[in-house]
């Protein structure tokens, strides 16, 4: 089977989003006695999304895209998402120190001692600047 381009897949995902918007918008009033209803504007941009994404799916170019290094970026994003998800239970200091340690030690391959020092320094800096100096609460 021919390998599809990234444009094809992104177009398909956006077509699904457009379809969802259109279906939802059809459930709301299109026109009311006072004028356009809540479904008026979403219906039109939903149809616009479907039309443009269909164009990408059928006529999109097989543009080469460089995905080398994407693994590093996606791994960092996953670490960020996990650190945000556990904030509620472990607090900012621990979750953010762990995220920093991950970036320094794993992504940039610095020695664990350097990573630990950077993590501690960054967290301490945040505590000094935000809650103490600016009075802004940390998560």
């Amino acid at each position: 089977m021919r390998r599809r381009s990234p444009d094809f897949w992104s177009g398909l995902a956006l077509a699904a989003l457009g379809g969802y918007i259109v279906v939802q918008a059809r459930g709301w009033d299109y026109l009311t006695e006072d004028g356009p209803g809540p479904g008026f504007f979403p219906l039109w941009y939903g149809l616009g999304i479907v039309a443009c994404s269909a164009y990408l799916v059928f006529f999109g170019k097989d543009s080469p895209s460089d995905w080398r290094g994407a693994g590093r970026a996606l791994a960092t994003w996953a670490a960020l998402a996990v650190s945000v998800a556990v904030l509620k239970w472990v607090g900012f200091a621990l979750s953010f120190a762990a995220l920093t340690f991950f970036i320094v030690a794993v992504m940039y391959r610095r020695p664990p001692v350097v990573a630990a020092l950077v993590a501690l320094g960054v967290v301490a800096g945040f505590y000094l600047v935000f809650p103490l100096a600016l009075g802004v609460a940390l998560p």
Partner: protein
Amino acid sequence: MDIAAGLIQGFAVALQPANLLWCFVGVLLGTVVGIMPGLGPPATIAMLLPLTALMNPAGAMIMLAGIYYGAKYGGSTTSILLNVPGESASVVTCLDGYAMARKGRAGPALGIAAIASFIAGTVGVLGLMLVAPPLARFALAFSAPEYFALMAFGLSMVVLLAGRSMAKALLAMLVGLWIAGIGTDLFTSTSRFTFGRMELLSGIDFVVVAIGIFAIGEVLANLEAREEPQLLPVPKGLRNLLPTMQDLRDCRFAFAQGSIIGFLIGVLPGAGSTIASFISYGVEKAFSRRREEFGTGVIEGVAAPEGANNSETGGALVPLLTLGIPGSGTTAILLAALVLWGFKPGPLFISENPNLFWGLVASMYIGNVMLLILNLPLVPLFAQVLRTPVYVLYPLILGVSIVGIYGSSGSLFDLMLLAGFGLLGYLMRKLDYPSAPLILGVVLGGAMERALRQSLMMSEGSLSILVSRPISALMLSFALLILLIPLFSRLNTWRVRALEQKDS
């Protein structure tokens, strides 16, 4: 109020010690941000936006604008010393700036960049001061249909100039409109696209989208590379940074045309400083007696784009402050900042808030002088910023983003959204979807829907109201023409070539 009286009032505001301090903080931060590759003004302004809620609006606006135009000064330093643009507007400066540095003329290249930025930046502010008040008076005649048409025109320009693929730029804008539509409909109290989550009833905060797309997306994209670029030696001492009299004579035309082209392109929604700098470079090359030497280290090749990208700032503030229409990602965030502080940017903004408008204008004159002083003798010091290890810098950006969002909303749900928009920002970069149309869609979506629905209420549902009023009809015709450009092959070839040059 006439311009002279307004300017005197503005200097009275801008010269207040607190506002002078914020102006200095803004231009200093802007220079640092401009120098750092991978951290642009939109990301920085978005990150600082939640913190400005604690500040006086005049001081906050002066500081954020300082970051905006200060970054343009700083961007050239990285282009000249590293051959890596500190921000997108300095891409073209790499061509001759880095070539000059390799020939041992880094000092004059940095010096002429600062001088051109100062001259053109000041001309840009002069243009803002002269053009904005009459334009605002003209726009007082606008009603809902004209506003809708104006927003459609602005968005069409952004779509035209933001990406190589019109379909992708349109999709980004439409998704932005959808994000803006999430929440409770103000006309009928209907919940739209809330997925049953209480947190989404009040909509998605623009700051979450902006920080996610710009700051987190940028960090993720930069994390792809492990290596850090090598810095060329930085000349020390003011004497080594000053261009010669011959250099200044060679740059006379570049100063003038860069200032004018930059301002005019800035006023146009969507074009932005990167395009301004490329056009100015092209004009300089076309009219130069030594055009074949461009790219090998010609000083006008630094002065022209650096001038244009600084003058563009003044131009870009014209539609933002007089019509409430931002023309780029950064001005969209500035618009959100004004709304956050309780202002309504539009034709009445200048007359209702003279202190803020004229204070901003005056602060920009002062800021440009501060930047010239900072960027001439202190360039070697600023260049040290480039030695900050990225493994320290990136966690700091992520941390400030998290604390900024939590500080403004106190919601952990917003932090999850932030992570989600960060991923979206990264994927958009990878898949070549421009982010400016999405951000503009989010910022203008609510106002655009309101304007359209008010227009149709006025006409009892008839769309003819949009084309029966001359200004509205004219702007909608332009918007339609712009969107049809891809069908005309020669014009589209020009558009795509310009955008490819910008990316190369």
